């Protein structure tokens, strides 16, 4: 009786060692499936860097325009203002286009689908705060309240990032916090709005894009 218990113990022990490797594989596969099914992780860091560079180039062009032709003050009518708006939309459009292109490429490389439940959820959750904020800004601009628009764009963009981070690479959350804080500072000191935009949409995108690029893209 005692012998069979001892024997059983040894058999049990050895299968345990063999199986613990399989269990380890199970656990890592579980984590992988949880991430893959709920998060879209193929966001490209490089596209963040490029978006930041576009923003800096756009800001430099705006700065030069306003300094040379308008004595450092931006009036809300005339060709300079229209050109600045054009630059703004060009930067935004180019950033989105670059993001889509590079993310599609990365998703293909990762074997992740570009348009599935997780990417749809990511985009939806990103767009809800962004669209709500965008509409709100349009409404107050229409009421001739121009002072806070710049701050609000930073704040709502930051909130959109925080909201989206649950469905993508979690680190985006911190970029969102930074944008919200910059937006609040911008609301306090509207005079520095231009430089806070340069910092938020330009420098922070480059810094964050580079961090993402080296953390997730280069290693593999």
């Amino acid at each position, binding site marked *: 009786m005692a012998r069979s218990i001892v024997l059983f113990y040894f058999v049990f022990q050895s299968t345990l060692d063999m199986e613990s490797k399989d269990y380890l594989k199970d656990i890592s*596969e579980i984590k992988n*499936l949880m991430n893959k099914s709920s998060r879209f992780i193929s966001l490209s860091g490089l596209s963040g860097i490029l978006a930041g560079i576009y923003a800096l180039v756009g800001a430099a062009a705006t700065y030069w325009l306003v300094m040379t032709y308008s004595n450092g003050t931006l009036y809300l009518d005339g060709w300079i203002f229209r050109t600045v708006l054009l630059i703004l939309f060009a930067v935004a459009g180019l950033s989105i286009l670059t993001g889509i292109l590079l993310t599609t490429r990365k998703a293909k490389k990762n074997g992740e689908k570009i348009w599935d439940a997780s990417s749809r959820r990511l985009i939806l959750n990103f767009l809800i705060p962004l669209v709500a904020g965008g509409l709100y800004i349009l409404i107050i601009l229409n009421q001739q309240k121009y002072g806070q628009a710049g701050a609000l764009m930073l704040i709502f963009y930051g909130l959109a990032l925080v909201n989206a981070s649950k469905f993508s690479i979690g680190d985006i959350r911190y970029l969102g916090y930074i944008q919200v804080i910059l937006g609040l500072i911008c609301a306090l000191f509207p005079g520095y709005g231009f430089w806070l935009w340069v910092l938020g949409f330009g420098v922070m995108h480059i810094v964050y894009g580079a961090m993402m690029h080296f953390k997730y893209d280069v290693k593999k």
Partner: protein
Amino acid sequence: MSLITNINKVFDHRIRLGIMSILMVNEYADFNMLKELLEVTDGNLASHVKALEKAEYLEVEKQFIGRKPNTRYNATQLGKTEFKKHINALEKLIQKGT
């Protein structure tokens, strides 16, 4: 020996663990989503889903999207609790094993 008591026989299969992992982090998942993520055949997936359904670890919901029938699944509270217990047991086993 008490270690082994929390290892759940129902979960003792790669695909079943996979199904439950997906349902833990998603409110629901439909048949095709599970199939694509787990890379299994229809028949294979169906049999494992059935086993989990029989244990009442997941619920099946049949509906129509337009004209197409769509079957989607969500984990029950019991299923989630049992899955957590199972994972904890696995982790303890791994710690003992190494």
